[in-house]
C-alpha cells in the first residue's frame, strides 16, 4: 500500500467514536439554553474525530509511536480545552463533584496521565488490547479536562489566579519535557510493540523506506513531539494567563 492509497483507505470508521461525538452534541444541545459557544464544541468534535478516525489513528494503532504521541497530545491538550471553552460562562460543577476542582489533583491528572500511559507495559497494552485502548482515550479526555479546569474554567472564580496558573503550567510543562527528553534520548525502546509491527495493512514497507521512519527515529520524533510542541502549547497558555493578568478584570472595573 503506498502513501496515497493509505490516505484514502486508512480511515477508522469506529461506530463508537462517531456515536460518542453525536451524543456529545445532542447532550450539549439539550442541556444548555445558551448555545452561543457551540462553535468551540464543533471544533472539539473535529479534533476528536481527526485524532480517532483519520489515518493518524491507523498509524497510532501499532505502526508509529510518533502518531500515537500526536493522538495523545490532541486528546489531552486540545480537545478538553475546546470542550471547556464551549461551556456557557455560568457553568459550575455541582456540589457533589466539586472536590475534583483541586489544583493539586488537576496537576497530577495532567502530568500523571502523560507519565502513566508511557510506562512500557501500559503503552503496549493500549495498542494490543481494545478495552485498554478505550480506557486510555476516555482517561485522557477526562484527566485533560481536570487539568485545564484550573486554568480555563468557565467562571473566573473557579480559575487559579494568573501568577499561580503560570506556575501550574510551567511546572506541568517541565514535568512533561522531562519525559520527552527521556523518550528522545533513551537508548532503549520505551514502547516495544512499535518495534515489532504486525503489518495488518501492508503499510510497513512504505513507512520504513518511503517515509524513512526507522523505529529509532520514530521514538525520537515521539519524544520531541512531547517535548517541543507540547511545551509550545503550555507556553501559549502561559501567555494567555499573562494577558489575563495585565487586562483589567471585571471586578476591578466595577471597583473603580
Amino acid at each position, binding site marked *: 500500500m503506498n502513501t496515497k492509497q493509505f490516505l484514502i483507505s486508512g480511515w477508522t470508521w469506529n461506530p463508537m467514536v462517531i456515536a460518542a461525538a453525536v451524543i456529545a452534541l445532542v447532550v450539549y444541545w439539550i442541556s444548555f439554553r445558551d448555545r452561543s459557544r457551540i462553535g468551540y464544541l464543533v471544533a472539539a468534535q473535529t479534533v476528536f474525530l481527526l485524532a480517532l478516525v483519520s489515518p493518524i489513528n491507523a498509524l497510532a494503532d501499532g505502526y508509529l509511536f510518533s502518531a500515537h504521541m500526536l493522538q495523545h497530545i490532541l486528546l489531552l491538550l486540545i480537545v478538553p480545552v475546546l470542550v471547556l471553552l464551549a461551556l456557557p460562562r455560568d457553568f459550575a460543577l455541582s456540589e457533589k463533584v466539586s472536590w475534583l476542582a483541586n489544583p493539586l489533583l488537576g496537576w497530577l491528572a495532567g502530568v500523571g496521565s502523560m507519565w502513566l500511559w508511557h510506562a512500557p507495559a501500559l503503552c503496549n497494552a493500549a495498542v494490543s488490547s481494545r478495552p485498554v485502548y478505550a480506557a486510555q482515550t476516555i482517561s485522557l479526555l477526562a484527566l485533560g479536562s481536570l487539568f485545564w479546569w484550573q486554568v480555563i474554567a468557565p467562571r473566573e472564580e473557579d480559575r487559579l489566579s*494568573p501568577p*499561580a496558573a503560570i506556575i501550574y503550567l510551567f511546572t506541568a510543562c517541565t514535568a512533561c519535557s522531562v519525559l520527552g527528553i527521556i523518550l528522545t534520548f*533513551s537508548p532503549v525502546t520505551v514502547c516495544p510493540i512499535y518495534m515489532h509491527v504486525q503489518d495488518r495493512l501492508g503499510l510497513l514497507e512504505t513507512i520504513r523506506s518511503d517515509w524513512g521512519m526507522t523505529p529509532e527515529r520514530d521514538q525520537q520524533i515521539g519524544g*520531541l513531539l512531547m*517535548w*517541543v510542541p507540547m511545551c*509550545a502549547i503550555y507556553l501559549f497558555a502561559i*501567555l494567555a494567563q499573562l494577558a489575563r493578568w495585565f487586562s483589567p478584570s471585571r471586578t476591578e472595573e466595577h471597583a*473603580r
Partner: protein
Amino acid sequence: MNESSTALPHHGLLSLEQKMHWRIAWISTVDHKRLGILYMITGLVFFVAGGLEALFIRLQLAIPNNHLVSPDTFNQLFTLHGTTMLFLVAMPVLFGLANYFIPLQIGARDMAFPRLNAFGFWLVPFGGILLHFSLLAGGAPAVGWFAYTPLSERPFSSQLGVDYWALSLLVLGIGSVSTGFNIIATVLCMRGPGMTLRRIPLFTWINFINAFIVILAIPVLNAALVMLLIDRRLDAHFFLPQQGGSAIIYQHIFWAFGHPEVYILALPAFGIISEVVPVFSRKPIFGYEFVAGSSIAIGLLSFGVWAHHMFTVGMGRAADSFFAIASMLIAIPTGVKVLNWSATMVGGRIRLTTPMLFAIAFLIHFTCAGLTGVSHAMAALDWQTKNSYFLIAHFHFVAVGAIVFAIFAALHYWFPKMSGRMLSERLGRWEFWLMVIGFNLTFIIQHFLGLAGMPRRVFTYPDLPGWGWMNMVSTIGAFFMTAASLIFVYNLANSFFRGAPAGDNPWNAWTLEWATPSPPPHDNFDALPPIHSRRPLWDLANPGRPDPVVGPQGKADVANLEKNKTSVLAFILSEAGFFGVLILAFLYYNANPQPGPGPRDLNLSKTLIFSLCLFASSFTIWRSEVALHLEKHHAMKLWLALTILLGGIFLIGQGMEYWALFQSGVAVNSNLFATSFFTLTGFHGIHVGVGLIALLIVLAMALAGDFEKKKSTTLEAISLYWHFVDVVWLLVLTVVYLLPRLR
C-alpha cells in the same frame, strides 16, 4: 580626596562614623548598595584581565603565521577570556546593578537577605582567584569556555587547569544561585506599599524573571561540573567514550545550562534598555505588558532550544528539525521587544545623552545579532558556519554589541545616583564613538572572515587571500575599544571626585530610585511617594494629568509573601534542577545492563527500612509544626528531636550500605552503574546532612526559647526543605532500587 570642596555627603563611600573603622567598613558591609558597587568594581577588575587576554588574542592573530604566543598559550588565553568575560565580568556587573537598583525601584530598604547577599558577592572574587590561580598551579585551562569532553578529561588535559576551572565555576554558580533567590524573595516579599507586581519597573520585572532562569539553569551546570570533577579526580568515566561513557551527554547538560546563560546575560540588558529608552524619549514605554510578557516567553523558550548548539554533533534529522523550528520561535518575543523600544522612541522628544546613545547602538547591534542568530537556527546554514569566525562575530554582537553596550548605558544612566555626581558628557561622547567604531571594526569583518572559511580557536593561520588584512582591521578595532574603555575608567574616577553635583533626579526619570537623594542614604527612603501607577514620580510632578491607575488585582498582586518560605521554595526549585540532571543521568547510564556491579547487588530490604525512617521523619516534622502552631513547645521539641534521630538513622543506614559495597570491592570507578549510583545517592546524603544541621540549629533555637518569645517561620521553612529531601529520596528509591528490578 578633596571632600571639602563640595557639599556632598559621601554616603556612597564612607560616612563619618565609618571613618573610624574604615578598614572593614566595605569588607563587612551587608548594604545592598555597597555590595552592588563591590560587584561592579570586581567586574571592572576582571574586565581588565579579560580585556588584556582579548588583546593578546587579537595581537597574535593580527598577521598570518604569527608566533607572538605559543599554541598552548593561545588556547589558555581564549579559555580564560571567555570564562572571565561571561562569569566574572558580565554576570557580576549585571548582578551588581540588580542588587543596587531593585530594592530602590520597589521602595525597599534592602534585599530580603542582606547577609546572604554579602555571601553571594564574596564568592565572586574567590571564584575569580581560583580560576586565575591555575596560572600559577601549572597551566590555565586550555579547553575553551565550554570545556567539551573528552578533551577536558584527564587523559587529554592532565594538568590541574580544568579542575580549577570547574571548581571556580562551581563557586561562582553557588553565589549566583543565592543571589537569584535573594532577588526573587526581594521582589515578592519586600515591595513598598502600593508597589504591586503589575506596577514594578521593567528593570526589576525583567531581573525578577531572570532570577528564575538563574536558579533553574545554573544548577544544571553545577551537575555537569561535579560529574566532570568526579571523572577527573576519582577516575570515573561519565564522559569518556572509551570506557562506555558518553561525551555527547556532557554537551547536552552543558548547553541545557549554556543556552539559558545567554539569556541570563541578555535579559538584564533588556531591562536596562527598557528603563533608558523611555526616560530619554520623554514617553512611557510603548507596550509595558508586551515587554514584560515577552520576557517570560524568552525565559521559557530558552530552556527548550539548547540542542541548536549541537546541530553538527549528529543528533539526527528529526531532532535538528524540531530544534530549528523552536529556535526560530525565539525571534518572536525578542522581535516584539525591539519593536517596543523603537515605538517608544517614535514621536518622543529624544535627548541624545550618553546613556541614550549607548541604548540606540544597543538596538542596532542587537538587531544585527538577532539576524545572524536566527539564521543559525537553520541547521543547514549552521553546519557551514559553525566554529568559524562567523559564529564568533554573531555571539560578540550579542555579548559586546548588545550586553556591554547596555552595561555602558546603565553605568552612565545610574552613575549620578550611585555617586551623587554627573559623568562628563564630553568624555562620554568620546567613549561612545570610539566604542562604536572599534566594536564594528572588530566584529563586522569577522562575519566575512568566517564565510571565507577561517575557523575559530586556531592560534595562527596561513596567508590566504584576504585573511591577513581582515584580521588586521579586526585587531585595530580592538584597540579602539581599549581606548574607549580607558577613557571610561578615567571618566569614572575623575567624575567621582570632580563631577558636577547630580541632585536627586538629574534625568527627570519616573521610577522610585530617583525619589531619594544621590547617593541614597543607608535606609534608602525617608518616605515613599504614593504609588498608583508605573511612573510614581510622573504622577507626583504632574498631579493634573497622572498616568492611568494600574489597579491591583487580587491577593497575588498586592500581598507581600513571607520571605523565609519564599526563598526556601525558590531554593527547592533550583535543587530540583540539580537532582533532575543527576536522576536523568542515572537513567541514561543504566538503561542497558552492564558488566560489573548492578542495581541487583543492592540490598533492597535494608534500604527499605532506612527509607521508612526517612519518610517517617516527614511525618514527625509535620507534627512538630502542628505542636508549634498549638504553642505546645515541649511537644514541638520532642517531635523535632525525633525527626533528627530518624534522619540520623537514615544517614547511618546509607553509610552501612556504602561500607558493604566497598567491602565487596565496588568503588566509584568500578563501572558506570557504581559511578552514577554513588553520585546520586551521595549528593542526596549530603543534602540530608545539611538538613540535619539546619534542624539541629532549629532545635538549639527552640531549646533557647526563641520560638516562645516571637513567632518565627524558621521551622516551617526548614520543614519545606526536609519534605523536599524526602521526595527526592522517593524518586531515587524508585529509579535506583525499584525500577531496575522490574525488568
